[in-house]
């Protein structure tokens, strides 16, 4: 059971990771802050829901944040969970991006949500495939597949960066 000191420590240790994940998933700072707040309030209200035998606290918190993101999207009817193996349209380079970071952000956020979360958790949060599978509550093979498809899309969208094309030149 977590006590007050543990809860404060958990917040200090993981608040940036939770917020960063929520921000990259949603793209909106205010929404990311709401998600982060609700994630830690969930831990404050029901600390017994964290079971160390099922994974680290970071895995648990990111999993809560992920579920909250999807719940919010379902409420807003922005995202209806579908099989992520469905054909998805190719992501084209964004001609309006003014910086490399903006180009990457637009490309990642154009991915289907389940592929996006796989990329975010693997590339930015540093989780292993097994941890991502635990967070998303799927098999490891499914995570591998999502990650592969996401990388294929991103390679296409970010190819101009590899060839040394600066995003700002696209505006000329």
């Amino acid at each position, binding site marked *: 059971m977590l006590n007050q000191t543990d809860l404060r420590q958990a917040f200090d240790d993981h608040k940036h990771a939770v917020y960063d994940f929520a*921000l990259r998933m949603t793209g909106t*700072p205010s929404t990311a802050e709401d998600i982060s*707040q609700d994630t830690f309030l969930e831990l*404050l209200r029901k600390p017994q829901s964290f079971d160390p035998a099922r994974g680290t606290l970071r895995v648990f918190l990111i999993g809560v944040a992920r579920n909250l993101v999807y719940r919010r999207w379902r409420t807003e009817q922005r995202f209806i969970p579908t099989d992520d193996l469905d054909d998805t349209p190719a992501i084209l380079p964004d001609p309006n991006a003014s910086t490399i970071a903006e180009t990457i952000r637009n490309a990642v956020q154009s991915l289907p949500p389940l592929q996006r979360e796989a990329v975010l958790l693997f590339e930015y949060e540093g989780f292993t495939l097994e941890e991502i599978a635990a967070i998303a509550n799927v098999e490891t093979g499914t995570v591998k597949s999502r990650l592969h498809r996401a990388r294929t899309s991103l390679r296409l969208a970010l190819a101009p960066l*590899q060839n040394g094309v600066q995003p700002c030149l696209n505006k000329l």
Partner: protein
Amino acid sequence: MPEQAMTDQELSKTLREWKSTPAPETLDDRVFARRVPTPWWERLPGTPVAAFGALAGVLIVWSLTVLAPRDAPKPAPQPTPAPAVAAPIEPPTPITPPRPKAVRPKSVPTKSAPVNPAQPQLLMRVDPQFPADAPPALMSSTLKLYIHVGKDGHVIEAIPIGGEPALYAVAIEAVRQWLYAPEFQNGVPVEAYYEINVSFQPRPAKR
């Protein structure tokens, strides 16, 4: 010439150009301002023994100041250590019969309306008219009154709590016409309660 696709390592390196964003400081307040408040006994400093002692001290002080009746006789002084030099024995004072005290009216709200220890600022005063049938010896006497001042500074109620009963009526009649500067709390005028002294000054003889 066909372009070489990015490897996984190159893609990872490229993706990291999108830097992470730290959580805003407001998140701390949003999370911990809404948590279940810590029970008061956990916020007391020190050990549980110290906390119990502090609580007992607060209860003792509260019982002495609130529960003790005002007119109760003072407790006998505690024996003190004898001084090095014996004090001279004072001659016995003649015992006089106790003067009847003014009875406090039951309507004095002592607990629900705490008396403001500060004296209010008097803006307008009407001198009490000394009763013609009162003994001249009371000409310089002083009354103690409990007053209830409204938000506009007017005296809503005046209750005598000490002094010569023969002068109560004229004192109340005069004080009810007095005007005080209203008391403010957070910029808002509020009703207040005070204990004031009303003196009857002998008027200078007319030439």
